[in-house]
């Protein structure tokens, strides 16, 4: 059976806590994994990136197998082409904005790295800030650098872990717009982890409701809101409105 082009995840494990979930995300599609704190959202994302190793299952992306417990395949994070945006930005504090982005361009010829990094920063509206270190940037600017760095990797999948959690309302709105336009531009599966239902509904095509490491329901945001599969999903959706 051939690999589908998007991201296909089926994982089961016990560390850091029990999870058993399956989800998929097509090319140019955005999937939001939504659930309360401690539901295992970030763990699933970390499994895809190779930062957490599931006990069983399979992860395939863009025609490649990244993890397959049955055949013993487990690519390390640096060999999976993912663009990971961390909640805390996780920028390299000793490097400038340009240096942060260039660091993810290891696959590009050395002579081209700076120019490519500059272009990506410009795309994120960060012209003139190339030589600033993370500590000299605002939260929103740091987040844009993190996005530029994730894109620099030329990823096969974008993984966003609560990317808007640490920015103010105005910055969040601007980042929403940017992400929405990027979505259409990039032909990639994008997985967004959030506890904010409103955020998920505004941005995502598909939503995956998660609780205690298990998928409760997957579908279009409106469909889930109008036809929750269980009282538990209805409760979580209602709680998100509060």
């Amino acid at each position: 059976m051939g690999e589908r082009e998007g991201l296909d995840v089926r994982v089961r494990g016990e560390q850091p806590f029990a999870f058993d979930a399956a989800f998929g995300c097509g090319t140019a599609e955005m999937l939001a994994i939504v659930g309360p704190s401690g539901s295992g959202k970030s763990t699933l994302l970390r499994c895809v990136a190779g930062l957490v190793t599931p006990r069983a299952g399979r992860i395939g992306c863009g025609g490649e197998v990244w993890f397959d417990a049955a055949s013993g395949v487990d690519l390390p994070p640096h060999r999976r082409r993912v663009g990971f945006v961390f909640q805390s930005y996780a920028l390299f504090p000793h490097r400038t904005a340009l240096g942060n982005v260039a660091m993810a361009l290891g696959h590009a010829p050395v002579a081209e790295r700076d120019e490519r990094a500059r272009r990506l920063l410009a795309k994120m509206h960060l012209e003139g800030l190339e030589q600033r270190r993370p500590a000299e940037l605002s939260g929103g600017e740091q987040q844009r650098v993190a996005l530029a760095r994730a894109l620099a990797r030329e990823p096969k999948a974008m993984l966003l872990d609560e990317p808007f959690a640490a920015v103010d309302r105005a910055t969040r709105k601007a980042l929403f717009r940017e992400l929405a336009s990027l979505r259409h531009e990039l032909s990639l599966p994008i997985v967004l982890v959030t506890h904010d239902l409103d955020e998920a509904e505004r941005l995502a095509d598909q939503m995956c409701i998660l609780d205690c490491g298990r998928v409760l329901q997957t579908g279009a945001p409106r469909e889930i809101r109008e036809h929750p599969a269980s009282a538990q999903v209805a409760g979580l959706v209602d709680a998100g409105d509060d």
Partner: protein
Amino acid sequence: MDRSALALSFRLGAFTVLLLLPIGVALGRWLAFTRLRGKGGAEVALSLPLVLPPTVLGYYLLLAFGGGSALGRGFEAIFGHTLAFSFEGLLAASVIANLPFAIQPMQRSFEGIAPEIREAAACSGLSPWQVLGRIDLPLAWPGIAGGLVLAFAHTLGEFGVVLMVGGSIPGETRTASIVIYDRVQAFDTAGAGAMSALLLVLSIVALGVVQLLSSRVGRRHG
């Protein structure tokens, strides 16, 4: 002032630091990032030279390096002289005695690097060796340098271990601190005073450097 003893102490300090750099970085980094169960035991074992009386440590090292041990016999068979009472033996003892002085600041420094930063580096395509070279070492260098400065200063002043393992052979194992002891025994307080004053100044400078580097660690990790 006994210049040959001083030169020997500096040579011993320099070689000790040179050997402790890769050993300290490897062990300090491993202790900082490992989640294995043996970590606690390894930390205790590596801290032992801190609490063990230097003469006791020296005694066991003398047994291990002497002709009665397999290590001592093996060394003698290859190099033609015993490991005990030689510069090489002194160096090996010095490296072991200084392990906690070098490793602990290095470990703290590596622990100060947020895990997400190292994960972000891996997700950015950096191999584990590249993470070491481009993330870990640049961020932890003040702690690494601090550990080496501490180890160097401690080597200059080490007495018990040096005397037990090396004896007091001029030009081979007779270090500055042993000369101070010999001078005092010979009622040459002026000679002992000059050497002591020099070691005192070096220790104060070393502490100043460590303090400066520690403040840099704090700033680098925000």
